[in-house]
């Protein structure tokens, strides 16, 4: 428990926190199955919206694929270089109302397909899959 507390405290002491906060639209507190002390944020940059996962060590993972449907914004990443059967895919759904919680989905290999839709290649699960984590919006972006 002590180690966990220290780990989480380290995240909040980023050196460029102020500069990064300018680009942060919403930061999220995860609830569910996510890496320990991971942080999530929706940001706005020159290229538009982007979603970022930040590990306690400061390593950031971008979700490069983005599309929008009536339900809200979706961001996805997968580690299958050639086929969806070779790796996990992760999708984050952020409702249009940014005050509402977002949800993180994880699709196991073999349980999703990569489909072209609206010019975007994105993972689509072949069976209903429940969210793996709930991302609660925070009032003050700490990322």
């Amino acid at each position, binding site marked *: 428990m002590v180690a966990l507390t220290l780990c989480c405290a380290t995240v909040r002491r980023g050196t460029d926190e102020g500069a990064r906060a300018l680009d942060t639209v919403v930061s999220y507190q995860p609830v569910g199955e996510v890496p320990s002390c991971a942080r999530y944020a929706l940001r706005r940059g020159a290229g538009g919206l982007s979603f970022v996962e930040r590990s306690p060590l400061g390593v950031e993972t971008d979700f490069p694929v983005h599309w929008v449907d009536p339900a809200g914004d979706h961001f996805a990443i997968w580690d299958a270089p050639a086929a969806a059967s070779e790796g996990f895919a992760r999708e984050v759904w952020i409702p249009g109302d940014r005050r509402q919680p977002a*949800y993180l989905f994880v699709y196991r290999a073999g349980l999703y397909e990569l489909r072209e839709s609206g010019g975007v290649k994105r993972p689509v699960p072949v069976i209903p899959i429940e969210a793996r984590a709930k991302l609660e919006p925070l009032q003050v972006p700490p990322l």
Partner: protein
Amino acid sequence: MSPRWTAAAIAGVTGAVLAAAGCTSITLRASEARTPVLLGPVACIGCAPEPGRVAAPPTVAGGVHEREYVIATFPSGALDRITDDTVPLDVAATTAVADPCREDLRVAAVHAGTWSFHEPLIANTWIDAQASRAAVPNGVCGVAPWPSVGPTGIDKRRP
């Protein structure tokens, strides 16, 4: 190339090949299926076994297969591994059972095996399972706390 260097190279390649070949495993699971997939003749999750129950013939099948090739190259072995969920058990269970609240699946048989050749190393490993559908009288499901996403998009139903 000196004899000592040749011996070291052979030992290195052999070690790499054995290390690559000795650490493989596969898993057959149905962790994403909403339909309970039960091992053994039980009436429900947490219930005691049902002695003497006559099982229905298995109608649902799933399996995972892995083929592995290891080619001795220097300085390390080249490994090619192909894993296929021939029929993902999650998908088979979801497809077979329309109402997971009133029906579950009971595993009737599991077949697992492996064979390999060592020169060159070719290994084949598999797990196949067959399951029977079983009605759950008066079965009810709890409300899913979080939304789910499927082939048609987000299902936002929540309590």
